[in-house]
């Protein structure tokens, strides 16, 4: 066991953790942040994507002990004071959520993409979410949601599929 101190969505947590525990299991099982999901456990699907010191990572491939002293952001920190973020609202508007399993990780990758590319092209969006699998939507609605969230509503509406 080792003692680990992390900040998650602005709150500080101190816990004893096993050396072989992944950051994903630590967030879900020890701290209760179950919005972050385990899909493949091997870095293929991106359902476990969180921010670690400002960079997106697959939390299934990070040890909890490696995160000692770090600041982590998860999907639970996306809405502020009960209000959905711009990205979440756009996902809602464009039906970019079906089963929802990929959504937590997907929103993390989209937030990261928009931080570095405020008005991404469709190709840049596809590349930004290439590490996040969605088995429900076929990605079209997600791409439209990202276009909308980045102030490109006209392009989003031309996306081919109309919702809402």
């Amino acid at each position, binding site marked *: 066991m080792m003692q680990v101190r992390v900040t998650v969505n602005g709150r500080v947590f101190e816990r004893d953790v096993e*050396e072989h525990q992944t950051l994903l299991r630590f967030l879900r099982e020890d701290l209760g942040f179950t919005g972050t999901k385990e899909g493949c456990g091997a*870095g293929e699907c991106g359902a476990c994507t969180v921010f670690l010191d400002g960079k997106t990572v697959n939390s299934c*491939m990070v040890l909890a002990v490696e995160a000692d002293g770090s600041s982590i952001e998860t999907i639970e920190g996306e809405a502020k004071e009960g209000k959905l973020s711009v990205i979440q609202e756009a996902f809602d508007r464009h039906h970019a959520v079906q089963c929802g399993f990929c959504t937590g990780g997907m929103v993390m990758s989209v937030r990261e993409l928009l931080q570095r590319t405020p008005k991404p092209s469709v190709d840049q969006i596809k590349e930004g979410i290439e590490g996040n699998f969605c088995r429900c939507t076929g990605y079209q609605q997600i791409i439209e949601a990202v276009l909308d969230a980045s102030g490109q509503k006209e392009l989003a509406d031309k996306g081919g599929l109309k919702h809402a």
Partner: protein
Amino acid sequence: MLQRFQYAAPTTRDELLGLLAERKGKARLLAGGTDLLVNIRNGVMKPELVINVKKVQGYSGITWSQSEGLILRPATTINDVLRDRQVRELFPLLSECAHDLASYQIRNRATVIGNVVNASPCSDMAPALLCLGAKAVIASKRGEREVPFGEFFKGVKKTVVQDDEILERIVVPASSAGARGLYRKLKRINGHDLGIIGVAVMKKDGLVRLGISSSAPTPVLVDGLGEKDDIETIVAAARKAISPISDVRCSKEYRQYMVEVFVKRLFAEVE
């Protein structure tokens, strides 16, 4: 769930090399973890001790100088390479290969050194390092030695690095600065996927080198070619250097064929 192991996060090189010497063969180095933790999860590796290298002083960042060349270190990530303006300008082939490696999240975490010591035949960074004439500087308590990447890979998942050693620096020589090059990887999908085959073509001062992945037990270097050679000579050299197998992704004949196609296309495309 991962099997149990002990964990160490040394902050000095001496401490790290001491641990490696002491726990010879029982320890594994952790940098990005994107291969190691998957291997532990699958039971392929069962280390007693996992040593995080990222906290060791002097083990991160990228430096470039005319006298020393370009230096990549154990904690240098793939995205560090992609964000580096000097790498983009002076060694564009490195950026090309880095860009095709896995997904954004993995590139944030995975390291260049991890990618080569993992020694997968489909390593994306190896083709660039082979073409650019890079060398590996390998350290242990016994001392330091240099191995050119052309002699670094010894088989599938096998390299010259011994149990008590760490690949401490990758040095890309200043003489390769300005080399033009492209890398292309054949994949089942447009996004995050392992390569079916990958080909890098480099041209510099009349010389041509090829770096080929997923077409032999190790990444392959084809050297000794010139820009004035006709395309059939170049393709024949590539064909001779590779020994592809048939597997879940495709047949060896298809690999052979597509390596030739990619060599032809890239040779024409690299200005």
